[in-house]
């Protein structure tokens, strides 16, 4: 077997992950250079969570996950234990689809988990399959992530060989197959119904809702659980140590830890595992343990709290804890655990334009408000940046935004976690369209003067002297 590609020293040069003194539930092996091997995994408590699960009944395992209030880490923050309960009885086979498509701007944590600790993810998949009677697991890895694909495939080969995956796992009557599958470059495939379409060998376009959850109708029309890589990577620790131990970290409503990628204008950008719910944005951005402040002593201008789809935050939001409810009440979301920090040198219009350009480019084109609306937003922002903005452009931007996503966005972020309101307020099939509105509305609200300055700034138009008597 060929050895996984090391990407010549990339990891040493730009490690991404930065360890801190907090609890390590899912990054405990990252310090080892061979963290991705079965040997290291077994030497560091690997597959103990599976053994614990196999000693319990499937229902007991599901109950542990429910009690732990393990929140989904893919973006919506929906409790995994509750989602698992949506499987309709008796409609076998059920499937597990792992969402490893990570491509939300600013998001960088699932790739680390896949590259550095693939066995932890595999063990998480096994635990979910055992608990719910899922018969096959599909690990869908983003197409562009060659190293993650190699590490996962190598780990699967090892795990099959050692009897941790496949037929009658470790001498029990539990049998499941796990297959690594790949994407091929399309952000929208991260949306779970689009992911299922892609896994069926089709164009990755979101399905019409309802049904809202693939747990009812998913892969091949069968009940399907879709979970994020980080969500599942929590299960080995959770099953080894129990729900109570899990709940001793983080806060009451957001227990455990979470990985945050903090990027942008920082002294020490990085991916940090932090206690969910108790750590604040300020600690993460300014703390010595974490990012150590804005680069070169500059001032914070704004930050994106939860990936490209989330409405933007400012200085007054720094003391909010990294917890879904208060962040939702303040009008945004923790989303995919991606914080992008911008200092006072940043052009607000340009930053908003870049995020909108992403959504315009990635719109799958299935619904008109998104396909047309995101393109218009991008073009209007572009002309404002080019000094060709028109006085009515600000209202036009807001009006287009309102067509894609009427009312406050995101509606879901204002509700109670236990009852995420579905469908969210949008005129589109999926939330991609509304996502493009967030940066526009955020920056217009706060930095309207920057827009106005760009729009009213006119380069003087040279007036040609018209010779007297010339025909006009």
């Amino acid at each position, binding site marked *: 077997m060929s050895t996984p590609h090391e990407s010549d020293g990339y990891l040493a040069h730009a490690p*991404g992950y930065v360890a801190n003194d907090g609890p390590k539930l899912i990054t405990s092996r990252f310090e080892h250079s061979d963290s991705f091997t079965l040997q290291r995994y077994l030497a560091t408590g690997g597959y103990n969570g599976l053994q614990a699960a196999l000693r319990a009944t499937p229902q007991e395992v599901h109950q542990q996950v429910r009690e732990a209030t393990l929140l989904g880490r893919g973006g919506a923050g929906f409790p995994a234990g509750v989602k698992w309960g949506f499987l309709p009885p008796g409609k076998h086979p059920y499937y597990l689809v792992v969402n490893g498509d990570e491509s939300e701007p600013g998001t960088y944590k699932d790739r680390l988990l896949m590259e550095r600790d693939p066995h932890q993810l595999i063990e998480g998949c096994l635990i979910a399959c055992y608990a719910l009677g899922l018969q096959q697991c599909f690990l869908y890895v983003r197409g562009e992530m060659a190293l993650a694909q190699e590490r996962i495939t190598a780990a699967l080969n090892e795990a099959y060989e050692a009897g941790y995956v496949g037929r009658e796992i470790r001498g029990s009557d539990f049998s499941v197959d796990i297959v690594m599958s790949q994407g091929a470059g399309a952000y929208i495939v991260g949306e779970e119904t689009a992911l299922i379409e892609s896994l069926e060998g089709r164009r990755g376009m979101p399905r019409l809702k309802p049904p809202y959850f693939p747990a009812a109708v998913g892969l091949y029309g069968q009940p399907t659980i879709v979970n994020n890589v980080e969500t599942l990577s929590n299960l080995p620790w959770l099953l080894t140590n129990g729900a109570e131990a899990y709940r001793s970290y983080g806060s009451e409503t957001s227990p455990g830890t979470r990985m945050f990628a903090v990027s942008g204008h920082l002294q020490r950008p990085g991916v940090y595992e932090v206690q969910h719910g108790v750590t604040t944005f300020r600690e993460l951005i300014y703390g010595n343990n974490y990012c150590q402040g804005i680069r070169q002593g500059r001032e914070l201008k704004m930050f994106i709290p939860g990936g490209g789809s989330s409405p933007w935050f400012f200085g007054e939001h720094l003391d909010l804890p990294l917890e879904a409810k208060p962040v939702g009440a303040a009008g945004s979301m923790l989303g995919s655990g991606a914080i992008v920090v911008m200092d006072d040198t940043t052009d607000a219009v340009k930053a908003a334009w870049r995020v909108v350009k992403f959504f315009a480019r990635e719109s799958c084109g299935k619904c008109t408000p998104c396909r047309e609306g995101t393109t218009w937003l991008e073009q209007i922002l572009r002309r404002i940046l080019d000094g060709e903005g028109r006085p009515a452009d600000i209202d036009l931007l807001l009006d287009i935004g309102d067509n894609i996503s009427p009312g406050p966005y995101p509606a879901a972020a204002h509700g109670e976690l236990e009852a995420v309101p579905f469908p969210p307020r949008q005129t589109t099939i999926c939330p991609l369209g509304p996502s493009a509105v967030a940066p526009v509305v955020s920056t217009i609200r706060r930095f309207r003067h920057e827009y106005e300055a760009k729009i009213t700034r006119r380069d003087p138009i040279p007036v040609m002297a018209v010779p007297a008597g010339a025909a006009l």
Partner: protein
Amino acid sequence: MKPDSASVFTTDNEARAVEIISWFPRPRSAMIPLLHLAQQQDGYVSDAAMRRVGELIGVTTAEVKGTASFYEMFRFEPVGRYLINVCTNISCLLCGGEELLEHACEVLGTEVGGTTSDAMFTLEEVECIAACTEAPCLQVNYRYRGRVTNTDFDRLVEDLRAGQTDIPHHGVLSQVHQRTDAEHRAGIVPPEQAREAPVWISRNSDTQAGD
């Protein structure tokens, strides 16, 4: 002359295609992995390869093309040996991604989207590649480089020209392949053939809502 579609894949790759299909309950699910296999072999996805993929998974060539064209990674014409993807999305924009892209254009003497005349390099501007804390960053044939300065970029190009990296040619993704024989698998069958609750569930069925 058009190649006969059965000989599009090498013998090894034809066998690998069959192996890949065997991992899925329905052959069509192997669509994307098989297109990657074709691109790995030839550096792009040829019409003949799409025809063969369609035959292997039992769909029309038009359906294969329609699906393949949705996904950005698939190329339908040859590209450079090295595809350099520079990210300019938000975190990279903040840390010099646009400037890096401009520098790359100058050094390679090509526009964004262009290929150098020696067919060594194709340059693209891409969206977030999940390395945001390492901005500005890029990928060469989907292998990462982070915190890339202009000097780093120049050295990278020199090394690639001199063949001094272990980066394989365009199209090669995972160099490890999943292989486990049928005997060690749980058994992969179409959904119609798996209607029974699995044994470890039915054994606990008195309390299981699912049965």
